[in-house]
């Protein structure tokens, strides 16, 4: 099978993180991916919030420990505002 390269894994983790942060931390993306890279981007800011909540090392970066917590099954946060 084609080896899953480091870049694939990174991309997959980024996708996971973006879905997670949109769903649970109201991350808004306008579809552009470059915004994730800078440390002051909304993406990094939301990562920090999530790391803070789960008692992880607050780096704003998508490290393996943060990905591991994002992969855990959890409760959703229904979108009351837009529903009502």
């Amino acid at each position, binding site marked *: 099978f084609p080896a899953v390269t480091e870049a694939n894994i990174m991309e997959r983790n980024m996708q996971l993180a973006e879905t997670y942060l949109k769903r649970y931390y109201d991350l808004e993306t306008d579809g552009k991916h470059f915004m994730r890279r800078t440390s002051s981007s909304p993406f990094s800011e939301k990562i920090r919030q999530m790391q803070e*909540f*789960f008692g992880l*090392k607050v780096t704003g970066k998508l490290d393996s420990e943060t990905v591991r917590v994002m992969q855990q*099954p959890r*409760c959703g*946060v*229904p*979108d009351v505002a837009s*529903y009502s």
Partner: protein
Amino acid sequence: ITPGRPVWDNTDLTYRILNYTPDMAQADVDRAIEKAFKVWSDVTPLKFTRIYDGPSDIEIAFETGDHGDNSPFDGPDGLLAHAFQPGKGIGGDTHFDDDEKWSKGTNGYNLFLVAAHEFGHSLGLSHSDDPGALMFPNYSNDDPNTFHLPQDDINAIQDLYGPTTNAVKPTGPTTPTICDSKIIFDAIITLRGEIMFFTDRFFWRKHPQTPQAELNFIKSFWSSLPTGIEAAYENPETDQILFFKGSKYWALSGYEVLYGYPKSIYQLGFPKTVKKIDAAVYIEETQKTYFFVGDKYWSYDEERKVLDKDFPREIAEDFPGITQKVHAVFQKNGFLYFFSGQRQYEFSITSKKVMRLMKNNSWLGC
């Protein structure tokens, strides 16, 4: 508490189960839901009555994918369920993702545990950052049969609705904090280079390469182990770990409990006067395991699988300086680390004396 502090105007609430999951018998779903509501009614004046027709305060349904509430589910795993805060219409309603495997036990997601969490939202609670709390967002493999509502959740729900009017005011378990200098560990083991510190339902897992220890539920690693482990040790020769509670012990290899366990400690040769083991440690140099009970200890020959003769011996005689009850012990780099009360003693096996006195949580990065 959910921002805006939404609460129900009255404490007599109704609920209706709109449909069922094919994963469980309907009676088991009914029981899980009823038990989940009881978690909250036990500690507040809240009362929950099931109705079968007409609108109820809390409508319960199993849904999949996009189910029309602007908060679609995501297939197996990931998002398990959600619930709406108190209010009219959809307020309080609870939806379970039926792409999950629901269970009354632990072979799948335990419906009772998830429902109890979701009803917390239906009553106005948000998520807690206490990893031992019911309202912690991630699914925990807690034991549904011995579940007690944690104190963090009791405090929150009583802040909204006040305490129960019952004479008995229930309290709940609290989550140990990593740098609590008063912590007393139940047991400590090394495991393939890591060190695991057990206390109540939890254990801290310290990997040599990570600065911070990670808190886990015992049940999330070994679902068939009891909580409140009293002693444990790793036998690196057999790559097994053994856990002791009362007069029983379990042998595990990795995550699996070996066939035929739990066994009785009396099968190891202990006299009936021994009711439980306080601490245990395997000594690689001699291939002996020491079992500490009260102020004495036994030596067990792992080769011959028998207790050595001329035991028990006084702990203080062979380990000068270790004079109190041993709560936990592990070996590392030629030292034995005895945990006795709130003190940790570094004991040199070769020079047979205590080299250092440390805090119990010195290994946890405190």
